[in-house]
Protein backbone atom coordinates (compact mmCIF):
# COMPACT_ATOMS: atom_id res chain seq x y z
CA UNK A 1 0.00 0.00 0.00
CA UNK A 2 1.00 3.58 -0.47
CA UNK A 3 3.50 5.00 1.96
CA UNK A 4 1.89 7.49 4.24
CA UNK A 5 3.34 10.88 4.92
CA UNK A 6 5.41 10.82 8.07
CA UNK A 7 3.76 13.06 10.56
CA UNK A 8 6.25 12.69 13.34
CA UNK A 9 9.32 14.77 12.73
CA UNK A 10 12.81 13.82 13.67
CA UNK A 11 14.35 16.35 15.96
CA UNK A 12 17.03 16.98 13.37
CA UNK A 13 14.41 18.50 11.16
CA UNK A 14 13.19 20.61 14.03
CA UNK A 15 16.71 21.73 14.69
CA UNK A 16 17.14 22.61 11.06
CA UNK A 17 14.02 24.72 11.07
CA UNK A 18 15.27 26.71 13.97
CA UNK A 19 18.85 26.73 12.83
CA UNK A 20 18.85 30.36 11.86
CA UNK A 21 17.81 31.51 15.30
CA UNK A 22 19.80 29.14 17.41
CA UNK A 23 23.11 30.12 18.88
CA UNK A 24 26.23 28.12 18.40
CA UNK A 25 27.74 26.53 21.43
CA UNK A 26 30.91 28.23 22.61
CA UNK A 27 34.15 26.65 23.69
CA UNK A 28 32.99 26.43 27.28
CA UNK A 29 29.90 24.53 26.16
CA UNK A 30 32.05 21.93 24.46
CA UNK A 31 34.37 21.69 27.41
CA UNK A 32 31.55 21.06 29.89
CA UNK A 33 29.86 18.59 27.57
CA UNK A 34 33.08 16.68 26.98
CA UNK A 35 33.72 16.43 30.71
CA UNK A 36 30.17 15.26 31.31
CA UNK A 37 30.32 12.75 28.46
CA UNK A 38 33.59 11.42 29.81
CA UNK A 39 31.95 10.96 33.19
CA UNK A 40 29.10 9.10 31.55
CA UNK A 41 31.32 6.79 29.57
CA UNK A 42 34.18 6.34 32.00
CA UNK A 43 32.66 3.68 34.29
CA UNK A 44 31.83 1.61 31.24
CA UNK A 45 35.29 1.89 29.74
CA UNK A 46 36.80 1.20 33.11
CA UNK A 47 34.68 -1.96 33.41
CA UNK A 48 36.46 -3.22 30.32
CA UNK A 49 39.86 -2.16 31.69
CA UNK A 50 39.25 -3.90 35.01
CA UNK A 51 37.97 -6.97 33.19
CA UNK A 52 41.25 -7.16 31.30
CA UNK A 53 43.39 -7.14 34.46
CA UNK A 54 43.97 -9.59 37.29
CA UNK A 55 42.42 -9.48 40.71
CA UNK A 56 45.81 -8.73 42.29
CA UNK A 57 46.43 -5.82 39.97
CA UNK A 58 43.07 -4.35 40.96
CA UNK A 59 44.16 -4.48 44.60
CA UNK A 60 47.02 -2.04 43.99
CA UNK A 61 47.34 1.69 43.73
CA UNK A 62 47.20 3.54 41.48
CA UNK A 63 44.32 1.76 39.77
CA UNK A 64 44.96 0.64 36.20
CA UNK A 65 44.09 3.11 33.48
CA UNK A 66 44.82 0.97 30.48
CA UNK A 67 43.97 -2.50 29.25
CA UNK A 68 45.85 -5.56 30.44
CA UNK A 69 46.12 -8.96 28.82
CA UNK A 70 43.63 -10.97 30.83
CA UNK A 71 40.39 -10.05 29.16
CA UNK A 72 39.67 -13.33 27.43
CA UNK A 73 40.65 -15.45 30.39
CA UNK A 74 38.34 -13.47 32.68
CA UNK A 75 35.52 -13.52 30.19
CA UNK A 76 35.89 -17.27 29.98
CA UNK A 77 35.78 -17.72 33.76
CA UNK A 78 32.78 -15.42 34.08
CA UNK A 79 31.10 -17.25 31.23
CA UNK A 80 31.36 -20.64 32.92
CA UNK A 81 31.09 -19.58 36.59
CA UNK A 82 28.00 -17.44 36.21
CA UNK A 83 26.50 -19.59 33.51
CA UNK A 84 26.53 -16.54 31.28
CA UNK A 85 25.59 -18.37 28.11
CA UNK A 86 22.31 -19.58 29.56
CA UNK A 87 21.75 -16.27 31.30
CA UNK A 88 22.22 -14.29 28.09
CA UNK A 89 19.92 -16.62 26.21
CA UNK A 90 17.28 -16.38 28.96
CA UNK A 91 17.51 -12.61 29.05
CA UNK A 92 17.18 -12.42 25.29
CA UNK A 93 14.05 -14.58 25.42
CA UNK A 94 12.59 -12.62 28.32
CA UNK A 95 13.34 -9.15 26.97
CA UNK A 96 12.36 -10.17 23.44
CA UNK A 97 9.00 -11.59 24.50
CA UNK A 98 8.23 -8.65 26.74
CA UNK A 99 9.14 -6.17 24.01
CA UNK A 100 7.11 -8.02 21.37
CA UNK A 101 4.09 -8.44 23.64
CA UNK A 102 4.18 -4.88 24.86
CA UNK A 103 4.46 -3.49 21.34
CA UNK A 104 1.66 -5.67 19.99
CA UNK A 105 -0.85 -5.11 22.79
CA UNK A 106 0.04 -1.44 23.15
CA UNK A 107 -0.54 -0.81 19.45
CA UNK A 108 -3.93 -2.52 19.55
CA UNK A 109 -5.07 -0.65 22.65
CA UNK A 110 -3.44 2.61 21.56
CA UNK A 111 -5.26 2.42 18.23
CA UNK A 112 -8.60 1.81 19.97
CA UNK A 113 -8.03 4.78 22.28
CA UNK A 114 -6.79 7.02 19.49
CA UNK A 115 -9.27 6.38 16.71
CA UNK A 116 -12.22 4.20 17.67
CA UNK A 117 -15.42 5.23 19.34
CA UNK A 118 -16.75 3.24 22.25
CA UNK A 119 -18.44 3.77 25.58
CA UNK A 120 -16.39 4.64 28.67
CA UNK A 121 -13.39 5.39 26.47
CA UNK A 122 -12.14 8.36 28.45
CA UNK A 123 -12.72 6.68 31.77
CA UNK A 124 -10.82 3.59 30.63
CA UNK A 125 -7.94 5.71 29.34
CA UNK A 126 -7.68 7.44 32.69
CA UNK A 127 -7.61 3.99 34.30
CA UNK A 128 -4.73 2.94 32.04
CA UNK A 129 -2.73 6.02 32.99
CA UNK A 130 -3.64 5.52 36.64
CA UNK A 131 -2.08 2.05 36.62
CA UNK A 132 1.31 3.68 36.01
CA UNK A 133 1.21 4.95 39.59
CA UNK A 134 1.14 1.49 41.12
CA UNK A 135 4.67 0.60 42.22
CA UNK A 136 5.85 -2.94 41.48
CA UNK A 137 6.86 -3.51 45.10
CA UNK A 138 3.25 -3.43 46.08
CA UNK A 139 2.34 -6.56 44.22
CA UNK A 140 5.49 -8.54 44.66
CA UNK A 141 4.40 -10.66 47.64
CA UNK A 142 1.17 -12.03 46.13
CA UNK A 143 2.85 -12.29 42.76
CA UNK A 144 5.41 -14.53 44.35
CA UNK A 145 2.65 -16.57 46.01
CA UNK A 146 0.90 -16.94 42.66
CA UNK A 147 4.07 -18.00 40.92
CA UNK A 148 4.80 -20.50 43.67
CA UNK A 149 1.30 -21.91 43.45
CA UNK A 150 1.53 -22.33 39.70
CA UNK A 151 5.00 -23.90 40.14
CA UNK A 152 6.47 -21.25 37.87
CA UNK A 153 9.37 -20.49 40.16
CA UNK A 154 12.54 -20.46 38.10
CA UNK A 155 10.62 -20.53 34.86
CA UNK A 156 10.87 -17.68 32.44
CA UNK A 157 7.13 -17.10 32.12
CA UNK A 158 7.16 -15.99 35.75
CA UNK A 159 9.15 -12.97 34.61
CA UNK A 160 7.57 -12.52 31.19
CA UNK A 161 3.83 -12.64 31.86
CA UNK A 162 3.55 -10.00 34.62
CA UNK A 163 5.33 -7.41 32.44
CA UNK A 164 3.76 -8.25 29.11
CA UNK A 165 1.60 -5.14 28.93
CA UNK A 166 2.54 -1.59 29.80
CA UNK A 167 0.42 1.43 30.48
CA UNK A 168 3.20 3.66 29.21
CA UNK A 169 3.18 1.68 25.97
CA UNK A 170 -0.56 2.12 25.46
CA UNK A 171 -0.28 5.83 26.12
CA UNK A 172 2.78 6.20 23.89
CA UNK A 173 1.08 4.47 20.95
CA UNK A 174 -2.13 6.41 21.45
CA UNK A 175 -0.30 9.72 21.35
CA UNK A 176 1.51 8.70 18.18
CA UNK A 177 -1.51 7.34 16.35
CA UNK A 178 -3.75 10.31 17.15
CA UNK A 179 -1.58 12.40 14.85
CA UNK A 180 0.02 9.89 12.53
CA UNK A 181 -3.03 7.92 11.46
CA UNK A 182 -5.46 9.87 9.26
CA UNK A 183 -9.02 9.05 10.26
CA UNK A 184 -10.11 9.26 6.60
CA UNK A 185 -7.88 6.32 5.83
CA UNK A 186 -9.72 4.14 8.30
CA UNK A 187 -13.06 5.40 7.06
CA UNK A 188 -12.14 4.63 3.48
CA UNK A 189 -11.21 1.09 4.44
CA UNK A 190 -14.44 0.83 6.36
CA UNK A 191 -16.45 1.92 3.32
CA UNK A 192 -14.73 -0.83 1.39
CA UNK A 193 -16.05 -3.17 4.06
CA UNK A 194 -12.78 -3.99 5.81
CA UNK A 195 -13.14 -5.65 9.18
CA UNK A 196 -11.50 -4.05 12.21
CA UNK A 197 -8.78 -6.62 12.30
CA UNK A 198 -8.02 -6.03 8.62
CA UNK A 199 -7.78 -2.31 9.32
CA UNK A 200 -5.30 -3.02 12.10
CA UNK A 201 -3.22 -5.35 10.02
CA UNK A 202 -3.08 -3.39 6.78
CA UNK A 203 -3.31 0.20 7.95
CA UNK A 204 -2.53 0.65 11.64
CA UNK A 205 0.54 -1.56 11.87
CA UNK A 206 2.27 -0.09 8.78
CA UNK A 207 1.56 3.47 9.93
CA UNK A 208 2.62 2.76 13.50
CA UNK A 209 5.86 1.03 12.56
CA UNK A 210 8.30 3.81 13.55
CA UNK A 211 6.68 4.24 16.95
CA UNK A 212 6.49 0.48 17.39
CA UNK A 213 10.21 0.24 16.78
CA UNK A 214 10.95 2.93 19.35
CA UNK A 215 8.64 1.41 21.96
CA UNK A 216 10.15 -1.99 21.27
CA UNK A 217 13.69 -0.74 21.87
CA UNK A 218 12.78 1.13 25.04
CA UNK A 219 10.91 -1.87 26.42
CA UNK A 220 13.73 -4.21 25.50
CA UNK A 221 16.29 -2.09 27.37
CA UNK A 222 14.03 -1.87 30.41
CA UNK A 223 13.28 -5.60 30.45
CA UNK A 224 16.94 -6.48 29.93
CA UNK A 225 17.92 -4.44 32.96
CA UNK A 226 15.01 -5.36 35.23
CA UNK A 227 16.22 -6.50 38.60
CA UNK A 228 13.71 -6.49 41.45
CA UNK A 229 11.21 -9.07 40.26
CA UNK A 230 13.65 -11.41 38.45
CA UNK A 231 15.83 -11.74 41.53
CA UNK A 232 12.78 -12.85 43.50
CA UNK A 233 11.24 -15.13 40.89
CA UNK A 234 14.40 -16.70 39.50
CA UNK A 235 17.40 -18.23 41.24
CA UNK A 236 21.00 -18.34 40.19
CA UNK A 237 20.94 -22.10 39.86
CA UNK A 238 17.69 -22.36 37.95
CA UNK A 239 17.26 -20.20 34.90
CA UNK A 240 18.67 -16.80 35.80
CA UNK A 241 18.61 -13.68 33.72
CA UNK A 242 21.88 -11.83 33.26
CA UNK A 243 21.13 -9.52 36.19
CA UNK A 244 20.46 -12.42 38.54
CA UNK A 245 23.53 -14.27 37.34
CA UNK A 246 25.66 -11.16 37.96
CA UNK A 247 24.64 -10.96 41.61
CA UNK A 248 25.75 -14.57 42.00
CA UNK A 249 29.15 -13.65 40.61
CA UNK A 250 29.53 -10.89 43.18
CA UNK A 251 28.73 -13.16 46.08
CA UNK A 252 31.42 -15.79 45.75
CA UNK A 253 33.47 -16.57 48.86
CA UNK A 254 36.52 -14.81 47.52
CA UNK A 255 35.10 -12.56 44.85
CA UNK A 256 37.48 -12.09 41.96
CA UNK A 257 36.89 -8.48 40.98
CA UNK A 258 38.30 -8.79 37.49
CA UNK A 259 35.99 -11.73 36.79
CA UNK A 260 33.02 -9.82 38.19
CA UNK A 261 33.86 -6.95 35.84
CA UNK A 262 34.10 -9.40 32.96
CA UNK A 263 30.60 -10.61 33.84
CA UNK A 264 29.29 -7.06 34.05
CA UNK A 265 30.84 -6.39 30.66
CA UNK A 266 29.16 -9.46 29.15
CA UNK A 267 25.81 -8.41 30.55
CA UNK A 268 26.07 -4.85 29.25
CA UNK A 269 27.74 -5.42 25.90
CA UNK A 270 24.62 -6.41 23.91
CA UNK A 271 22.83 -3.21 24.91
CA UNK A 272 25.90 -1.07 24.27
CA UNK A 273 26.05 -2.57 20.82
CA UNK A 274 22.40 -1.70 20.31
CA UNK A 275 23.23 1.85 21.41
CA UNK A 276 25.99 2.12 18.84
CA UNK A 277 23.65 0.87 16.10
CA UNK A 278 20.34 2.46 17.08
CA UNK A 279 21.40 5.24 19.47
CA UNK A 280 19.86 7.93 17.29
CA UNK A 281 16.46 6.22 17.28
CA UNK A 282 16.56 5.49 21.01
CA UNK A 283 17.40 9.12 21.77
CA UNK A 284 14.62 10.24 19.43
CA UNK A 285 12.18 7.89 21.10
CA UNK A 286 12.92 9.09 24.60
CA UNK A 287 12.66 12.71 23.54
CA UNK A 288 9.44 12.07 21.65
CA UNK A 289 7.87 10.15 24.50
CA UNK A 290 8.91 12.90 26.85
CA UNK A 291 7.35 15.81 25.02
CA UNK A 292 4.02 14.13 24.67
CA UNK A 293 3.97 12.06 27.82
Amino acid sequence: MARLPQVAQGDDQLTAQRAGRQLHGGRLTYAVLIVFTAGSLFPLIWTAIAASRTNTRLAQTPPPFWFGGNLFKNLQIAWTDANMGTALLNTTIVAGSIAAGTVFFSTLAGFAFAKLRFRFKNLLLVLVIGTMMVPPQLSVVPLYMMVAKLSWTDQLQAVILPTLVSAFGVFFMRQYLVEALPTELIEAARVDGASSWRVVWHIVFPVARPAMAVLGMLTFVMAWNDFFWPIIALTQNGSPTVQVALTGLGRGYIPDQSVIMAGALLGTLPLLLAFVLFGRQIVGGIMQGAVKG
Partner: protein
Amino acid sequence: MASDTTAAVPSPSPGQEGTAPARARGEERRSRRYRRDVRWSPYAFITPFFVFFAAFGLFPLLYTGWASLHQVELTSPNDMTWVGLRNFSRLLSDDFFWNALRNTFTIGVLSTVPQLLIALGIAHLLNYRLRASMFFRVAVLTPYATSVAAATLVFVLLFGRDYGMVNWALGLVGFDHVDWQNGGWSSQLAVSTIVVWRWTGYNALIYLAAMQAVPADLYESAALDGASRWQQFVHVTIPSLRPTILFTAVVSTIGATQLFGEPLLFNGAAGATGGSDHQFQTLGLYLYEQGWVNLHLGRASAIAWAMFLILLLIGAVNWLVSHKLRKGMTS
Protein backbone atom coordinates in the same frame (compact mmCIF):
# COMPACT_ATOMS: atom_id res chain seq x y z
CA MET B 1 -3.90 -14.70 10.58
CA ALA B 2 -7.54 -15.67 10.24
CA SER B 3 -8.48 -12.22 9.06
CA ASP B 4 -7.83 -12.90 5.42
CA THR B 5 -10.49 -15.56 5.15
CA THR B 6 -13.08 -13.35 6.74
CA ALA B 7 -11.94 -10.37 4.75
CA ALA B 8 -14.88 -8.19 4.10
CA VAL B 9 -13.81 -6.67 0.80
CA PRO B 10 -17.11 -7.17 -1.04
CA SER B 11 -16.40 -10.44 -2.72
CA PRO B 12 -18.92 -12.34 -4.79
CA SER B 13 -20.79 -14.26 -2.17
CA PRO B 14 -22.85 -17.35 -2.89
CA GLY B 15 -25.99 -15.35 -2.42
CA GLN B 16 -25.28 -13.22 -5.46
CA GLU B 17 -26.32 -15.84 -7.93
CA GLY B 18 -29.42 -16.77 -5.96
CA THR B 19 -32.76 -15.10 -5.73
CA ALA B 20 -33.25 -11.56 -4.55
CA PRO B 21 -34.44 -12.49 -1.01
CA ALA B 22 -31.39 -14.69 -0.55
CA ARG B 23 -29.16 -11.84 -1.61
CA ALA B 24 -30.90 -9.51 0.81
CA ARG B 25 -30.46 -12.05 3.58
CA GLY B 26 -26.78 -12.34 2.81
CA GLU B 27 -26.36 -8.61 2.82
CA GLU B 28 -28.22 -8.27 6.07
CA ARG B 29 -26.05 -10.92 7.64
CA ARG B 30 -22.98 -9.10 6.46
CA SER B 31 -24.09 -5.75 7.73
CA ARG B 32 -25.04 -7.27 11.06
CA ARG B 33 -21.60 -8.79 11.33
CA TYR B 34 -20.12 -5.45 10.37
CA ARG B 35 -22.06 -3.60 13.03
CA ARG B 36 -21.07 -6.16 15.62
CA ASP B 37 -17.47 -5.80 14.56
CA VAL B 38 -17.49 -2.01 14.82
CA ARG B 39 -19.22 -2.14 18.16
CA TRP B 40 -17.12 -4.73 19.93
CA SER B 41 -13.67 -4.69 18.38
CA PRO B 42 -12.53 -1.63 20.39
CA TYR B 43 -13.14 -3.64 23.52
CA ALA B 44 -11.31 -6.60 22.04
CA PHE B 45 -8.32 -4.36 21.36
CA ILE B 46 -8.08 -3.03 24.89
CA THR B 47 -9.00 -6.27 26.65
CA PRO B 48 -5.48 -7.80 26.73
CA PHE B 49 -4.14 -4.82 28.63
CA PHE B 50 -6.85 -4.93 31.25
CA VAL B 51 -6.79 -8.71 31.60
CA PHE B 52 -3.05 -8.74 32.22
CA PHE B 53 -3.23 -5.76 34.52
CA ALA B 54 -6.07 -7.31 36.52
CA ALA B 55 -4.20 -10.58 36.90
CA PHE B 56 -0.70 -9.29 37.61
CA GLY B 57 -1.31 -5.78 38.91
CA LEU B 58 -4.67 -5.17 40.50
CA PHE B 59 -5.27 -8.56 42.07
CA PRO B 60 -1.82 -8.68 43.72
CA LEU B 61 -2.26 -5.09 44.89
CA LEU B 62 -5.44 -5.93 46.75
CA TYR B 63 -4.12 -9.25 47.92
CA THR B 64 -1.09 -7.51 49.43
CA GLY B 65 -3.50 -5.57 51.60
CA TRP B 66 -5.17 -8.81 52.61
CA ALA B 67 -1.86 -10.53 53.32
CA SER B 68 -0.65 -7.59 55.41
CA LEU B 69 -3.38 -8.44 57.93
CA HIS B 70 -2.07 -11.96 58.34
CA GLN B 71 0.92 -13.80 59.57
CA VAL B 72 2.32 -15.58 56.51
CA GLU B 73 5.68 -17.25 56.17
CA LEU B 74 7.54 -17.77 52.91
CA THR B 75 8.00 -21.44 53.78
CA SER B 76 4.26 -22.12 53.63
CA PRO B 77 2.59 -19.23 51.86
CA ASN B 78 -0.83 -20.85 51.99
CA ASP B 79 -1.09 -20.92 55.79
CA MET B 80 -2.40 -17.52 56.72
CA THR B 81 -3.25 -16.61 60.30
CA TRP B 82 -5.35 -13.50 60.86
CA VAL B 83 -3.53 -10.97 63.03
CA GLY B 84 -5.44 -7.80 62.21
CA LEU B 85 -3.29 -4.69 62.23
CA ARG B 86 -0.46 -6.24 64.21
CA ASN B 87 1.97 -6.13 61.29
CA PHE B 88 1.38 -2.40 61.01
CA SER B 89 1.58 -1.64 64.70
CA ARG B 90 4.85 -3.57 64.87
CA LEU B 91 6.15 -1.55 61.96
CA LEU B 92 5.50 1.67 63.84
CA SER B 93 7.61 0.52 66.77
CA ASP B 94 10.28 -1.01 64.54
CA ASP B 95 13.54 0.93 64.57
CA PHE B 96 14.68 -0.65 61.33
CA PHE B 97 11.56 0.55 59.57
CA TRP B 98 12.12 4.15 60.65
CA ASN B 99 15.78 3.81 59.81
CA ALA B 100 14.89 2.57 56.32
CA LEU B 101 12.37 5.35 55.89
CA ARG B 102 14.97 7.96 56.87
CA ASN B 103 17.57 6.44 54.56
CA THR B 104 15.13 6.30 51.68
CA PHE B 105 14.45 9.98 52.20
CA THR B 106 18.08 11.12 52.45
CA ILE B 107 19.28 8.93 49.59
CA GLY B 108 16.27 10.09 47.61
CA VAL B 109 17.16 13.75 48.11
CA LEU B 110 20.87 13.13 47.51
CA SER B 111 20.12 11.42 44.21
CA THR B 112 17.12 13.29 42.87
CA VAL B 113 18.16 16.90 43.43
CA PRO B 114 21.63 16.82 41.83
CA GLN B 115 20.35 14.55 39.09
CA LEU B 116 17.66 16.98 37.96
CA LEU B 117 19.80 20.10 38.40
CA ILE B 118 22.69 18.67 36.38
CA ALA B 119 20.25 17.36 33.78
CA LEU B 120 18.79 20.84 33.39
CA GLY B 121 22.23 22.34 32.84
CA ILE B 122 23.32 19.66 30.38
CA ALA B 123 20.06 19.96 28.46
CA HIS B 124 20.62 23.68 28.16
CA LEU B 125 24.07 23.09 26.69
CA LEU B 126 22.77 20.39 24.35
CA ASN B 127 20.20 22.86 23.12
CA TYR B 128 22.89 25.01 21.51
CA ARG B 129 23.85 24.33 17.94
CA LEU B 130 26.66 21.85 18.26
CA ARG B 131 28.96 19.82 16.14
CA ALA B 132 28.43 16.11 16.79
CA SER B 133 25.28 16.88 18.72
CA MET B 134 23.98 13.37 18.12
CA PHE B 135 27.17 11.89 19.54
CA PHE B 136 26.74 13.89 22.74
CA ARG B 137 23.12 12.87 23.06
CA VAL B 138 23.83 9.18 22.63
CA ALA B 139 26.87 9.30 24.91
CA VAL B 140 24.95 11.09 27.62
CA LEU B 141 22.28 8.40 27.47
CA THR B 142 24.62 5.39 27.58
CA PRO B 143 24.48 4.89 31.36
CA TYR B 144 20.75 4.30 30.88
CA ALA B 145 21.69 1.13 28.98
CA THR B 146 23.59 -0.23 31.96
CA SER B 147 21.78 -2.40 34.43
CA VAL B 148 21.57 -1.74 38.14
CA ALA B 149 23.67 -4.84 38.71
CA ALA B 150 26.48 -3.99 36.30
CA ALA B 151 26.59 -0.32 37.35
CA THR B 152 26.62 -1.06 41.06
CA LEU B 153 29.36 -3.67 40.76
CA VAL B 154 31.59 -1.18 38.96
CA PHE B 155 30.93 1.55 41.49
CA VAL B 156 31.66 -0.82 44.37
CA LEU B 157 35.11 -1.15 42.89
CA LEU B 158 35.51 2.56 42.19
CA PHE B 159 34.44 3.36 45.75
CA GLY B 160 36.72 0.72 47.29
CA ARG B 161 38.33 1.85 50.54
CA ASP B 162 41.93 0.82 49.94
CA TYR B 163 42.37 0.60 46.20
CA GLY B 164 39.34 2.36 44.81
CA MET B 165 39.87 5.05 42.22
CA VAL B 166 37.77 7.64 44.05
CA ASN B 167 39.92 7.43 47.17
CA TRP B 168 43.06 7.40 45.04
CA ALA B 169 41.93 10.60 43.34
CA LEU B 170 41.00 12.17 46.66
CA GLY B 171 44.43 11.19 47.94
CA LEU B 172 46.06 13.08 45.06
CA VAL B 173 44.47 16.29 46.28
CA GLY B 174 45.34 15.54 49.89
CA PHE B 175 42.22 13.98 51.35
CA ASP B 176 42.18 10.96 53.65
CA HIS B 177 40.68 7.71 52.52
CA VAL B 178 36.92 7.57 52.98
CA ASP B 179 35.28 4.30 53.94
CA TRP B 180 32.54 4.52 51.36
CA GLN B 181 30.94 1.22 52.25
CA ASN B 182 30.85 1.42 56.04
CA GLY B 183 30.49 5.13 56.63
CA GLY B 184 27.10 6.68 57.29
CA TRP B 185 26.78 9.69 55.02
CA SER B 186 29.56 8.49 52.74
CA SER B 187 27.81 5.22 51.90
CA GLN B 188 24.58 7.04 51.20
CA LEU B 189 26.43 9.47 48.98
CA ALA B 190 28.04 6.60 47.09
CA VAL B 191 24.70 4.84 46.55
CA SER B 192 23.20 8.13 45.36
CA THR B 193 26.08 8.60 42.94
CA ILE B 194 25.12 5.38 41.16
CA VAL B 195 21.56 6.64 40.72
CA VAL B 196 22.73 10.04 39.54
CA TRP B 197 25.12 8.47 37.06
CA ARG B 198 22.49 6.21 35.54
CA TRP B 199 19.62 8.69 35.22
CA THR B 200 21.02 12.20 34.65
CA GLY B 201 21.44 11.79 30.91
CA TYR B 202 17.98 10.35 30.53
CA ASN B 203 16.45 13.35 32.28
CA ALA B 204 18.64 15.71 30.28
CA LEU B 205 17.11 14.37 27.07
CA ILE B 206 13.61 14.83 28.44
CA TYR B 207 14.45 18.44 29.29
CA LEU B 208 16.07 18.95 25.91
CA ALA B 209 12.90 17.78 24.18
CA ALA B 210 10.85 20.23 26.22
CA MET B 211 13.32 23.06 25.51
CA GLN B 212 13.06 22.51 21.78
CA ALA B 213 9.31 22.99 22.05
CA VAL B 214 9.72 26.48 23.54
CA PRO B 215 8.73 29.03 20.89
CA ALA B 216 11.78 30.90 19.63
CA ASP B 217 10.03 34.28 19.64
CA LEU B 218 9.88 34.15 23.43
CA TYR B 219 13.67 34.28 23.41
CA GLU B 220 13.70 36.93 20.72
CA SER B 221 11.45 39.27 22.62
CA ALA B 222 13.42 38.61 25.80
CA ALA B 223 16.61 39.45 23.93
CA LEU B 224 15.01 42.63 22.59
CA ASP B 225 14.19 43.57 26.16
CA GLY B 226 17.88 43.25 26.91
CA ALA B 227 17.82 39.98 28.83
CA SER B 228 21.16 38.23 29.14
CA ARG B 229 21.57 34.54 28.34
CA TRP B 230 21.34 33.70 32.00
CA GLN B 231 18.26 35.85 32.45
CA GLN B 232 16.69 34.17 29.42
CA PHE B 233 17.41 30.80 30.98
CA VAL B 234 15.85 31.80 34.29
CA HIS B 235 12.90 33.79 32.96
CA VAL B 236 12.03 31.99 29.74
CA THR B 237 13.40 28.45 29.78
CA ILE B 238 12.65 27.44 33.35
CA PRO B 239 9.04 28.71 33.41
CA SER B 240 8.31 27.02 30.06
CA LEU B 241 9.73 23.80 31.42
CA ARG B 242 7.80 23.85 34.65
CA PRO B 243 5.39 21.01 33.80
CA THR B 244 8.27 18.86 32.54
CA ILE B 245 10.35 19.57 35.63
CA LEU B 246 7.41 18.62 37.80
CA PHE B 247 6.91 15.44 35.78
CA THR B 248 10.55 14.37 36.12
CA ALA B 249 10.53 15.25 39.81
CA VAL B 250 7.55 12.99 40.39
CA VAL B 251 9.00 10.14 38.34
CA SER B 252 12.39 10.39 40.07
CA THR B 253 10.74 10.56 43.47
CA ILE B 254 8.76 7.42 42.76
CA GLY B 255 11.98 5.79 41.57
CA ALA B 256 13.81 6.90 44.70
CA THR B 257 11.08 5.50 46.93
CA GLN B 258 11.55 2.13 45.30
CA LEU B 259 15.35 2.11 45.38
CA PHE B 260 16.44 -1.48 45.79
CA GLY B 261 19.14 -2.87 43.53
CA GLU B 262 21.82 -0.27 44.27
CA PRO B 263 21.75 -0.65 48.08
CA LEU B 264 21.42 -4.43 47.79
CA LEU B 265 24.49 -4.86 45.63
CA PHE B 266 26.56 -2.05 47.12
CA ASN B 267 26.74 -4.26 50.18
CA GLY B 268 28.84 -6.89 48.42
CA ALA B 269 28.42 -10.30 50.00
CA ALA B 270 26.61 -9.19 53.15
CA GLY B 271 23.07 -9.50 51.86
CA ALA B 272 20.02 -7.35 52.31
CA THR B 273 20.92 -5.43 55.46
CA GLY B 274 22.08 -2.32 53.60
CA GLY B 275 25.50 -2.17 55.18
CA SER B 276 26.94 -3.48 58.44
CA ASP B 277 24.86 -1.02 60.42
CA HIS B 278 21.85 -0.79 58.10
CA GLN B 279 23.25 2.61 57.19
CA PHE B 280 21.99 2.49 53.62
CA GLN B 281 19.06 0.12 53.88
CA THR B 282 16.11 1.53 51.97
CA LEU B 283 12.42 0.63 52.31
CA GLY B 284 12.54 -1.52 49.19
CA LEU B 285 15.50 -3.40 50.57
CA TYR B 286 13.88 -3.75 54.00
CA LEU B 287 10.79 -5.22 52.34
CA TYR B 288 13.00 -7.73 50.58
CA GLU B 289 14.84 -8.58 53.78
CA GLN B 290 11.64 -9.15 55.73
CA GLY B 291 10.02 -11.21 52.99
CA TRP B 292 12.80 -13.18 51.40
CA VAL B 293 15.54 -13.32 54.03
CA ASN B 294 13.48 -13.45 57.25
CA LEU B 295 10.61 -15.15 55.43
CA HIS B 296 7.83 -12.96 56.90
CA LEU B 297 5.60 -12.30 53.91
CA GLY B 298 2.88 -10.69 56.05
CA ARG B 299 5.25 -8.08 57.37
CA ALA B 300 6.69 -7.53 53.90
CA SER B 301 3.14 -6.83 52.71
CA ALA B 302 2.68 -4.29 55.47
CA ILE B 303 5.87 -2.53 54.37
CA ALA B 304 4.60 -2.56 50.80
CA TRP B 305 1.40 -0.84 51.85
CA ALA B 306 3.33 1.67 53.92
CA MET B 307 5.34 2.49 50.80
CA PHE B 308 2.14 2.89 48.83
CA LEU B 309 0.74 5.30 51.40
CA ILE B 310 3.94 7.32 51.27
CA LEU B 311 3.67 7.48 47.47
CA LEU B 312 0.09 8.67 47.74
CA LEU B 313 1.23 11.32 50.16
CA ILE B 314 3.94 12.46 47.76
CA GLY B 315 1.35 12.50 45.00
CA ALA B 316 -0.96 14.66 47.07
CA VAL B 317 1.82 17.10 47.99
CA ASN B 318 2.87 17.28 44.38
CA TRP B 319 -0.68 17.98 43.30
CA LEU B 320 -0.96 20.75 45.87
CA VAL B 321 2.32 22.29 44.78
CA SER B 322 1.49 22.21 41.09
CA HIS B 323 -1.96 23.59 41.86
CA LYS B 324 -0.42 26.46 43.81
CA LEU B 325 2.08 27.10 41.03
CA ARG B 326 -0.63 27.23 38.42
CA LYS B 327 -2.67 29.58 40.54
CA GLY B 328 0.36 31.73 41.12
CA MET B 329 0.95 31.94 37.38
CA THR B 330 -2.57 33.01 36.49
CA SER B 331 -3.08 35.52 39.27
